[in-house]
């Protein structure tokens, strides 16, 4: 599906050469930072700085005009004032540039009339000259595989999650959150005002891209809702699509004479559209990244029957109860364990002080050693009544009982157990006072493809979203 987009977008995500327009050595300019970011990231092709005053930057010649750049240029990043953009588009056409991304802001988002008019003129020039526009008012492309970072941004590892974002700030935050939580992107794009290429175009590309398995999106509005709806329907058929619609409270319902008109708020219609397109709707950056993380870590897995282990030593009681609430409220089930599992658990842990229902209390194992703890968790994971195990691991509680070495062993066991039982082990690591140790554990588990969340509530929500996907 949308295979034609792969070739069309090749110069955007895999350009052979990039020119950056708006570079100066005498004053601090966004273009200068961009050149530096590309060099630091190790972009594999030629980088050509362009700036009216000329000179040299980072050992590269600054060309006073785009037309003077030698050889072919696939992709241009533009950070110049808006009054110069039409002239620059003429240069792009003359130079046979394939795509141009405008960081330049101050168009329709600022001034509805003037800005809109200028955007239309840009589009007309671009269409005539066969140049594609990304933006304006955006930070463009992120492609770790081809070493293209966001400006002033770090490159994360290459992965399988793709994203589109109307906002540059959210796009950049997705990347940094991804680096912190091992959400590894195939590519992403911030498309700003989307005068030419918009969300639909990039969603189609990501649907076709063989390196992308999951797609996230942050959207505020659309210029062509029908096309977006039809695109999402097609995209969600082939890949999980997670959408966060910002600006849900905007006044969208106009004065209407019918009941239907007065009840049809913009937020209600967006939610209906997403549901109808089989996209998963989320309402915050946290929900978006949680859902992308679990899609990435568990791929095509689905399951609703949870075993809950609220704690590995003391203090898991209240947490088990609230975890049960979180699961139930998100449509997950907490089935009873089988009789055999219960019998084996009671033999292992002793009847006194242990609650061998589900949520399961394994805290008695702390008096019998790690081997007993592992056996108990293994018994729970093996039970055929359950699809996955949710385990809360509170480093603050575990450190004095098991020491750092014991905690490391516990987490190695989780990794081994997950692959041996072929059932997801989902770990909750709540932030606390032992933050450096907690972070180390989080990184290790994430690298081993185990989903890690900060609360049972967030885990339950993400698992529930994953189960919404129906292809």
């Amino acid at each position, binding site marked *: 599906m949308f295979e034609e987009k792969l070739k069309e977008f090749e110069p955007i995500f895999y350009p052979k050469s990039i020119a950056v327009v708006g570079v100066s050595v005498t004053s601090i300019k966004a273009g200068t930072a961009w050149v530096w970011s590309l060099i630091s990231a190790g972009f594999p092709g030629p980088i050509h700085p362009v700036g009216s005053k000329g000179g040299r930057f980072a050992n590269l010649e600054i060309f006073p005009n785009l037309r003077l750049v030698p050889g072919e240029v696939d992709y241009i990043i533009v950070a110049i004032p808006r009054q110069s953009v039409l002239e620059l588009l003429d240069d792009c056409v003359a130079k046979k540039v394939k795509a141009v991304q405008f960081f330049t802001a101050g168009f329709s988002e600022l001034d509805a009339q003037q800005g809109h008019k200028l955007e239309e003129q840009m589009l007309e020039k671009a269409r005539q000259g066969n140049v594609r526009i990304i933006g304006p008012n955006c930070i463009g492309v992120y492609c770790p595989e081809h070493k293209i970072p966001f400006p002033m941004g770090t490159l994360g590892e290459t992965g399988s999650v793709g994203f589109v974002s109307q906002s540059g700030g959210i796009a950049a935050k997705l990347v940094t959150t991804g680096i912190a939580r091992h959400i590894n992107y195939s590519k992403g794009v911030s498309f700003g005002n989307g005068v030419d290429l918009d969300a639909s175009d990039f969603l189609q590309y990501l649907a076709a891209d063989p390196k992308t398995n999951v797609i996230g999106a942050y959207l505020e509005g659309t210029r062509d809702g029908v096309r977006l709806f039809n695109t999402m329907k097609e995209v969600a058929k082939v890949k999980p699509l997670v959408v966060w619609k910002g600006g849900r409270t905007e006044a969208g319902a106009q004065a209407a004479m019918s009941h239907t008109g007065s009840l*049809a708020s913009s937020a209600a*219609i967006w939610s209906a559209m997403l549901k109808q397109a089989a996209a998963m709707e989320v309402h915050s950056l946290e929900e978006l990244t949680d859902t992308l993380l679990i899609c990435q870590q568990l791929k095509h897995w689905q399951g609703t029957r949870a075993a809950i282990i609220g704690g590995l030593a003391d203090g898991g009681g209240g947490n088990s109860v609230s975890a049960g609430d979180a699961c139930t409220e998100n449509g997950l089930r907490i089935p009873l364990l089988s009789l055999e599992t219960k019998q084996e658990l009671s033999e292992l842990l002793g009847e006194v002080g242990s609650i061998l229902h589900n949520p399961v209390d394994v805290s008695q194992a702390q008096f019998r050693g790690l081997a007993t703890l592992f056996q108990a968790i293994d018994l729970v994971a093996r039970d055929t009544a359950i699809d996955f195990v949710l385990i809360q691991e509170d480093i603050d509680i575990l450190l004095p009982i098991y020491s750092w070495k014991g905690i490391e062993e516990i987490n190695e066991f989780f990794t081994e157990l997950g692959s041996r039982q072929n059932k997801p082990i989902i770990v909750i690591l709540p932030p606390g006072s032992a933050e450096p140790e907690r972070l180390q554990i989080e990184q290790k588990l994430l690298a081993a493809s185990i989903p890690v969340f900060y609360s049972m509530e967030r885990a339950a929500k993400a698992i529930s979203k994953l189960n919404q996907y129906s292809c």
Partner: protein
Amino acid sequence: MIKSQNVLTEVESKGLLKKAGIPVVEAKLARSKKEAISISKEMGFPVVLKINSPDVVHKSDSGGVKLGLANATQVGKAYNEIISSVKQAYPEAQIQGVSVQPMASPGVEVIVGMNKDPQFGPVIMFGLGGILVEVLKDVSFRIVPLTERDAREMIKEIKGYPILEGYRGQKPASIPKLENLIVKVSQFVEKNPQIKELDLNPIFAYPDKAVAVDARIILE
């Protein structure tokens, strides 16, 4: 009162809907008391009389609706009352007469409507009728065109769904018939882009059918 050339009367609206295969309680226009009585006799009592004017949107607010009329005398009296009270409430309203329709036996009241979203075009709304739609806003939406699955999901999405399944001895409503009606409305508005807004309110849902009792179409 809304003065508009674009508002179709109930009789006109139902005529278009019927042609599109959407089940409606048929309403006939009576331009005089005599006509109202003869149409009533043809239809069989009891009947309902409603003011027929493009200018009167909230018909019952101005005394423009009389229900459960059991004989010719009652119909004649109701005709006079409707005309005089609407004339009093809206002296400028253009009155074409009254619509006459059979009194539908009570069913579960639902509403199906269409409105145009500035970003996504025509959207269909579904909800339970009466107070539930107005106060609780217990409604669901889907973008046109709707599949049968979309229709089924939007029916099940409302909080009041158990009422449709039959509540406290009330007879259940046929969900397939409602689905079918919703899909037909979707097709109808898709084929007629000049329709700006539409309300089928109420629709009576029965165990074996769903019928629009009142209908309003507003053109662009």
